[in-house]
């Protein structure tokens, strides 16, 4: 512990304490009569306006792991890592099209989770269970990864051991339990302000110290040129090789579609006050993408600054996720490095809180209430969800402390492919009732199997990793005479959709019952204030009887 950086640690701790206080104070912020309803604890009263939604969803989607991993990818492989920019550009137009429909039908019927919608739309408990389990499984490793972000920062400050992670997560768990979605919403203001400050200072200040952008890109070119060309070396460079282009765009597209389907994104969207709030936000959220693009370029600055990754985790291999904290430590004055580290660590807390709330809501609504205790009251639902959020976070902590962090990174890679398989049931379901519920289930199962099989079967001879060594599938392995690769998630969801269409045709021809649809076309267009749209805050008490069950009941 000899080389603990005291100034950095003091600034870091002070900012961390500030958000801890905010987290607990949040339970009184925009207070409802009681937090003992899932609309209050789990969706912040369903009443967040444009500004809060902007901070909340921005804080939700751009996680600490993103801030650490994207520059690390650019540092290691170059242009490929920049896929995060087109990915976060196209996600908003896509969400603009789809999310208002989901918001309307959810506020008409009191849905809290995507699986609630699937249950009401397709009239299938089995399909809803599949969607809920997929959401929980995909979210868990994502929470664990937030801890990788905090760990990288602590390491850069010279702090070793797992006890600081325990402290961080006990604090996080306590205020999430206490305040629900209001806590990350309030903390997101601090997180995003710090991130913007740090990134803007970094991209203005660091290049001047490194001799300007020309020298930075020259250093990167030199590094990539020093590695042997594929297949003997990695496919790296400051622009893509022509073989990489299809993989680049399918990864961007697949990641964008997956991002919307993650339960924590949907939680952020459903917490908005109105359809209009969501649409307005889709025009304003790309401001974060600009920051992300600048952050990605930090990877090249790390190359030019001669930063080399330190070891991390149990395997004692160099961990490229440490390069951004190390770059900040090297280039900034101690006190500002402390601010930068706090920004990353707080950046981990916001999404971790929202993810645990989203996973807890899925458990409570679609497993506990559906199968274990159908007569649970609104208060019991909220209590169960609060408890489940603790279990989810504890699980993530145990995973990160006891297992190789690489395991969480692998799981998150799998998570994106897995969550994409819920696309037909949710997104197609928002537009049409043509697809048969059993066909959607069959497509989900086949898509999941094919996706996992492909990921398992991807090896990287350069690192000696036999399985789960990437998410790009070489089309030549299916006999196509091409050098192109594609993102596994896109291939799997295409297979999923094909199975769904064929099975629907077969099931419809056989006259199999289609299940009850408790929604109507107009439900997908209602706006806040329309008749029949729930207003949780105003009606917290009486809504207990309305929210959670379709009005037809």
């Amino acid at each position, binding site marked *: 512990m000899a080389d603990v950086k005291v100034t950095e640690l003091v600034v870091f701790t002070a900012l961390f304490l500030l958000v801890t206080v905010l987290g607990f104070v949040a339970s009184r912020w925009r207070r409802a009569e009681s937090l003992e309803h899932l609309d209050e604890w789990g969706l912040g009263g369903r009443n967040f306006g444009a500004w809060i939604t902007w901070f909340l969803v921005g804080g939700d989607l751009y996680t600490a792991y993103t801030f650490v991993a994207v520059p690390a990818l650019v540092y290691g492989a170059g242009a490929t890592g920049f896929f995060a920019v087109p990915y976060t*550009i196209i996600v908003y*137009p896509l969400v603009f*099209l789809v999310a208002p429909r989901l918001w309307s039908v959810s506020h008409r019927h009191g849905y809290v989770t995507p699986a609630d919608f699937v249950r009401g739309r397709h009239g299938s408990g089995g399909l809803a269970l599949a969607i809920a389990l997929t959401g929980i499984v995909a979210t868990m490793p994502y929470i664990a990864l937030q801890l990788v972000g905090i760990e990288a920062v602590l390491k850069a400050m010279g702090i070793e051991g797992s006890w600081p992670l325990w402290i961080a997560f006990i604090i996080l768990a306590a205020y999430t339990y206490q305040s629900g979605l209001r806590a990350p919403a309030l903390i997101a203001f601090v997180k995003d302000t710090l991130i913007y400050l740090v990134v803007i200072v970094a991209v203005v200040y660091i290049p001047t110290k490194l001799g300007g952008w020309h020298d930075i890109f020259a250093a990167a070119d030199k590094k990539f040129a020093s590695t042997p060309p594929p297949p003997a070396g990695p496919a790296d460079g400051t*622009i893509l090789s022509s073989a990489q282009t299809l993989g680049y765009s399918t990864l*961007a597209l697949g990641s964008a579609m997956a991002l919307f389907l993650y339960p924590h994104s949907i939680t952020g969207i459903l917490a908005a006050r109105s359809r209009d709030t969501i649409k307005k936000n889709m025009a304003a959220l*790309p401001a974060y993408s600009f920051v992300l693009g600048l952050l990605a*370029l930090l990877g090249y600055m790390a190359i030019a600054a001669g930063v080399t990754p330190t070891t991390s985790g149990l395997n004692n291999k160099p961990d490229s996720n440490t390069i951004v904290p190390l770059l900040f430590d090297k280039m900034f004055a101690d006190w500002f490095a402390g601010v930068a580290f706090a920004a990353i660590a707080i950046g981990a807390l916001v999404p971790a809180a929202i993810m645990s709330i989203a996973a807890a809501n899925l458990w409570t609504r679609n497993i506990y209430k559906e199968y274990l205790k159908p007569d649970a009251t609104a208060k019991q639902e909220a209590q169960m969800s609060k408890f489940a959020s603790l279990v989810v976070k504890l699980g993530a902590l145990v995973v990160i402390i006891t297992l190789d962090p690489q395991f969480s990174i692998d799981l998150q890679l799998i998570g994106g492919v897995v969550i994409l398989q819920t696309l037909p049931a949710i997104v197609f379901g928002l537009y049409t009732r043509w697809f048969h519920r059993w066909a959607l289930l069959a497509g989900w199962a086949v898509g999941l199997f094919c996706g996992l099989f492909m990921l398992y079967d991807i090896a990287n001879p350069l690192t000696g990793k036999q399985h789960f060594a990437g998410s790009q599938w070489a089309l030549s392995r299916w006999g196509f005479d091409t050098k192109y690769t594609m993102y596994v998630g896109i291939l799997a969801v295409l297979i999923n959709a094909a199975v769904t269409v064929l099975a629907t045709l077969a099931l419809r021809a056989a006259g199999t019952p289609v299940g009850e649809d408790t929604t109507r076309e107009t439900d997908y267009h209602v*706006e806040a204030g329309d008749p029949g749209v729930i207003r949780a805050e105003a009606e917290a008490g009486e809504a207990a009887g309305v929210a959670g069950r379709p009005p037809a009941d």
Partner: protein
Amino acid sequence: MAVHDREPASEPAPVRAAARRHVHTPAWNLLLLIPLVGTLIPSVYNRVGPTLFSIPFFYWYQMAWIAGSVAVTLIVYRMTRGER
């Protein structure tokens, strides 16, 4: 499709009236596909030159689409405001 048109008798009259309102999806939404076309064809922008402040085309072209995407989304938002 009879399921769609079912009107539960238990709902209040204003809810049932609202449910009969005419709805349509505005054609303006098609504009939202432009950013996808702009960013998902890497062979268009996968090159070094022309550089901007010494930054290769590959990077500043994609960054520029952030502004492009904001502009398109704003236009669609303004033109479809109040529509459902």
